[in-house]
Structure formats: C-alpha cells, structure tokens
C-alpha cells in the first residue's frame, strides 16, 4: 500500500514540489558526510526534504533542512551517480551547488520479518533487517515497465548469507527514497513468506499501479 508519506512523496516527485526562490548557489562552508550548508540561501524548514542536492559530480538526498540565512541540509550520504547502491562517494568540497526539482526515486527496497498489516500512518519498516554485510539489507531494486501499461515493478533477488543470522522469514517489504532512513513510500506484505537459510534466494517484487 502507499502510505501517507508516499502520497506526499508522489505529489512532489511527479508534480515538481515546492520550487524555492533560490535553488542554486556557491557554498564556502566545507560539506560534511551527511550535511551541506547552502551559505546565503534560506530554504524554509524541511521544504527541501526528498530533493536532490548536486555538487561536484556527486549528489545527496535531503532528509531534512533548517531555515536560516545559511540553511543546513541533512542528507543520508553522498551518492556516486554511476553506482548509487555502492559505498558512499567522497564528500565534495565547497562550491557551486544545485537543488534539483522533484526528488529522488523510491527504489530502495527493504524487508522485515515483522508481519503486521501495513498502515497508512507508517513511516518506517518495523524491525527492518539490516545486519552488517547481510544479504537481506536495503538495496536498490531492479525497475521494469512495459510501454503503454499503467504499472511498473521494482524487484530484488536477495541472497541470504551467514551475517543475516538465518533462518529469516521476510514477511513484509518497504520502498524508500534513500539508502538509510528517508521516506517510506510503499509497504506490502509478502504472501506465504518462506523461511530462508544461508544461500537461499528470494525475489521480492512490488508492483505499482500508476
């Protein structure tokens, strides 16, 4: 189901969202691994949430932002555009930046053993599986779409490893717009979830009607 934050997400990503008075500038404050200071550009509080901040060949997805003469954007990490599902990109230096309209896609798939019914007010995936180097961790899913139809699918084939402390029974999945934290958009129960041991594979597919 599409949760409430998913409705908010869809409206801004598909519709463009709140375009600020100023969406570009040149920073002088050195960015950090999870923050970026706009230096001289005041963005209303949290109105950049979900948008993409681009700087020097890398980008971040804004989780939240302060409103001040020098707004501080909190991101989950810096992404390498050529490998967004890989390790965090190096933190860029200060300089010219752009805040892009719309927002980052909700292509990060996570799973949990929690089998509680999805609720419109959910903002996180309860007990999301996230073991260090686990095979069931949140990751970018494969997107697919048949031209001329009113749906698309996001799918991930998970392979369980010993770090997941199997057996594990993924019973529910969620789609987010960031690698960590971020906005929950869709949440769906997995029908007849299997108990998985190390080496087992499970392809989870979420179909979205548009």
């Amino acid at each position: 189901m599409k949760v409430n934050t998913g409705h908010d997400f869809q409206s801004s990503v598909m519709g463009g969202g709140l375009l600020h008075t100023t969406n570009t500038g040149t920073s002088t404050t050195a960015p950090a691994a999870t923050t970026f200071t706009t230096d001289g550009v005041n963005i209303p509080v949290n109105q950049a949430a979900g948008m993409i901040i681009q700087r020097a060949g890398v980008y971040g997805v804004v989780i939240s932002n302060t409103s001040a003469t020098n707004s501080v954007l909190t991101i989950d990490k810096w992404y390498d555009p050529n490998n967004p599902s890989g390790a965090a990109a190096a933190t860029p230096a200060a300089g010219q930046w752009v805040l892009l309209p719309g927002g980052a896609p909700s292509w990060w798939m996570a799973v949990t053993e929690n089998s509680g019914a999805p609720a419109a007010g959910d903002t996180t995936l309860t007990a999301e599986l996230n073991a260090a180097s686990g095979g069931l961790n949140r990751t970018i899913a494969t997107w697919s779409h048949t031209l001329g139809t009113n749906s698309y699918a996001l799918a991930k084939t998970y392979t369980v490893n010993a770090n997941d402390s199997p057996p594990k029974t993924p019973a529910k999945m969620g789609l987010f717009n960031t690698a960590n934290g971020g906005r929950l958009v869709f949440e769906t129960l997995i029908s007849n979830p299997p108990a998985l041991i190390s080496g087992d594979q499970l392809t989870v597919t979420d179909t979205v009607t548009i």
Partner: protein
Amino acid sequence: MPTVRLGNVSPAVFVAESNETDAGAKVHVDIDNGYDHNNTVTLFGIPPQTPLSEALVTVRAVWDRNHSFDPPEWVESDDEVLEMLLASEFNCAVGMPDDWEGLTP
C-alpha cells in the same frame, strides 16, 4: 546501470488482490499502439554491480510474474554478456528486428 529491452508480444499487467499484499494475478492488457497486434517493449533498469546470475533470475522472475504471457521475441542490452544470457534463457533473438511493429522506447 545496465538496461534491458525485451520485445513483448503478449503484454500483461499484474493486478493485486488488495493494496496491502503482493498477492494477485497477471492479466492480459491491450496496448493502443497503432498496429493490428499488441506488440510493445518492456524495459528493465538493473542496479550497477548486480551479479549477472542475480540479474538473470530477477529479469526472468519479473517478466513471468508481471509483464507477459509469452517469452520475448527479442532482447537488447547495453551489457553484451547479459544480452547473450537472456537470449539463451528466453530462446529469443538478439536485437530488435528492423520490421518490428509496436511501441518502442
């Protein structure tokens, strides 16, 4: 990010039983493509660094569950090895035929 295009001559959509679970069924869909038949193209965007074996399993699973009732007529990919593997998996041609009549990207 590897991309895959599959020639789809029997397009389908997956219709969920509810908006809370992944249970549902695949149903035929008519594509208004301007031709007398129903040809279209299914696109896949595969995350970078995805192992070939995983990409193959995922494309096969999603194709069968979501997108079509028949194997693709052809496959194209910017990853030549994946393209060859998918052509073998589906026993289909490599490359969109010059006379393909249907929706195209």
